[in-house]
């Protein structure tokens, strides 16, 4: 399965012109609120999703609309807001040169009016993927899929998709050594394993079966990763999108999460994640080994308020680094307070 190598976005949501090349390993998006990290993840995810299963029939235009879920389903609402008409362009490239592109304007209402090019060639090769949204969904799984199928609900499709992937049955055959090691590491962090009874998920440990609604939200996320590895969604050649892995996770668990992400990358999974968290970034910096492919993508607004990006393959080279800058500011203010009279 060939990974994503490049994206070019023009006038999509907050982006002006964004042209990024990706690492085949881990890609970490950082940037202030409103710099389009989640939007970038969703565009790439939509492109992956349409290579598999029922999403293949939807096609890129519809999938794109469904993961963004704009008001009244009007795709033009995800064009960059300007005082004049704008043309939005999306182009995604994979290893081997396969290219998928889409064009529409801020006046485009219907999905059918999106000009998609290269879709059939793009769909010839499967690219398994999973998108983990910020809000944890497994605890809310019962009834959710049935409701989503029958009613219009105000959830972006990424929420439906992740529940469907979590419900996939265990992969047939023996678990290979690398996956077994990962699953064991997660089980240690979780102190149990995940089981599903109908639409309900439980953490099974020596105390019995604990329903997900009773489980800390951070632990539910680890449980979800366990499920995705166990059922073969996350295998070599697949792509994991994870929006703010740090959400609801105690910093002491961050090392485990980063270790799992690095291991997945070593197994051949391409990873895209967004973060606001210093501990997560620092864990990557401290835990990366020779051969690990990590790319930091810093998104920021230029003078024209358009979001643009800067890429670095080292933690030190991330510029601008809003997370580090915040700590620098705190550090400086702390020094000045100390010199003026000090803490309480």
């Amino acid at each position: 399965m060939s990974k994503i190598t490049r994206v070019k976005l023009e006038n999509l949501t907050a982006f002006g012109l964004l042209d990024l090349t990706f690492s085949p390993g881990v890609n970490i998006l950082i940037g202030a609120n409103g710099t389009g990290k989640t939007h970038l993840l969703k565009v790439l995810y939509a492109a992956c999703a349409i290579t598999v299963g029922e999403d293949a029939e939807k096609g890129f235009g519809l999938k794109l609309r469904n993961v963004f879920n704009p008001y009244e389903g009007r795709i033009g609402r995800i064009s960059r807001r300007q005082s004049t008409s704008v043309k939005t362009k999306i182009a995604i490239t994979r290893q081997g040169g396969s290219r998928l592109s889409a064009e529409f304007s801020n006046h485009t209402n219907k999905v059918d009016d999106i000009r998609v090019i290269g879709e059939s060639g793009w769909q010839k090769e499967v690219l398994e993927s999973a998108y983990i949204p910020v809000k944890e969904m497994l605890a809310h799984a019962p009834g959710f899929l049935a409701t989503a199928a029958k009613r219009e609900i105000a959830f972006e499709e990424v929420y439906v998709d992740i529940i469907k992937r979590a419900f996939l049955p265990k992969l047939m055959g023996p678990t290979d050594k690398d996956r077994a090691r990962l699953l064991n590491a997660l089980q240690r962090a979780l102190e149990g394993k995940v089981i599903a009874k109908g639409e309900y998920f439980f953490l099974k440990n020596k105390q019995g079966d604990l329903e997900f609604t009773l489980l800390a939200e951070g632990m539910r996320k680890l449980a979800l990763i366990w499920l995705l590895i166990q059922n073969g969604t996350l295998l070599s050649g697949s792509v994991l999108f994870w929006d703010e892995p740090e959400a609801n996770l105690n910093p002491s668990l961050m090392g485990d999460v980063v270790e799992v992400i690095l291991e997945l990358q070593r197994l051949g999974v391409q990873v895209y994640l967004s973060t606001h968290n210093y501990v997560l970034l620092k864990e990557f910096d401290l835990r990366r080994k020779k051969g690990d492919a990590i790319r930091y993508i810093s998104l920021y607004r230029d003078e024209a308020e358009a979001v643009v990006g800067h890429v670095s393959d080292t933690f030190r080279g991330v510029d601008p680094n809003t997370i580090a800058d915040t700590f620098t500011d705190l550090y400086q203010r702390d020094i000045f307070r100390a010199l003026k009279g000090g803490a309480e």
Partner: protein
Amino acid sequence: MKLREGELEFDFSAANGVKKLDDPEKPLPHGMALVDFVIEEDQHLVMLEIKDPSCKAKGGNPAAEAALEKERANFVKKVQNDSLIAQELTPKARDSYSYLHLMKSDGKPIIYAFLLGADKLTLDPALLLAFKDRLLSRLRQEADQPWERHYVTDCVVLTEKTWALAFPQYPLRRV
């Protein structure tokens, strides 16, 4: 006045006065561990302790290099297990305060400054900030009860890169 501590040279000309407390040429009170310098300013005293794991090996030969590497590894260990704060930086601050008090030299509020010679280490402000918070908390409480007296008003943790942020009036260079 220019003073040196290992490879680090400070120009304290702008200070009202400066004393080298931890002077190997003078006998120290038995059992007391003292900071390197006390700098007197208009409004307060600064007790300055310096650790320099970035210094060069004395003599520059392989044996000295190896000894220095061992010393650096030991230093990292002391940071990791908190003994640098608990067994060195805090006792030095407390003993130095006691010394100044007994010498009737504690007439101004005291700031404790820890300078880490770290041009070979990469230390983010986040880590320095966390280190400072741990140090201050230890300075405030070492036993079952916190000290009733805040004998230092606050502390700062600096590197060569951030020294000028706190003390631009005292130029520092590595010699």
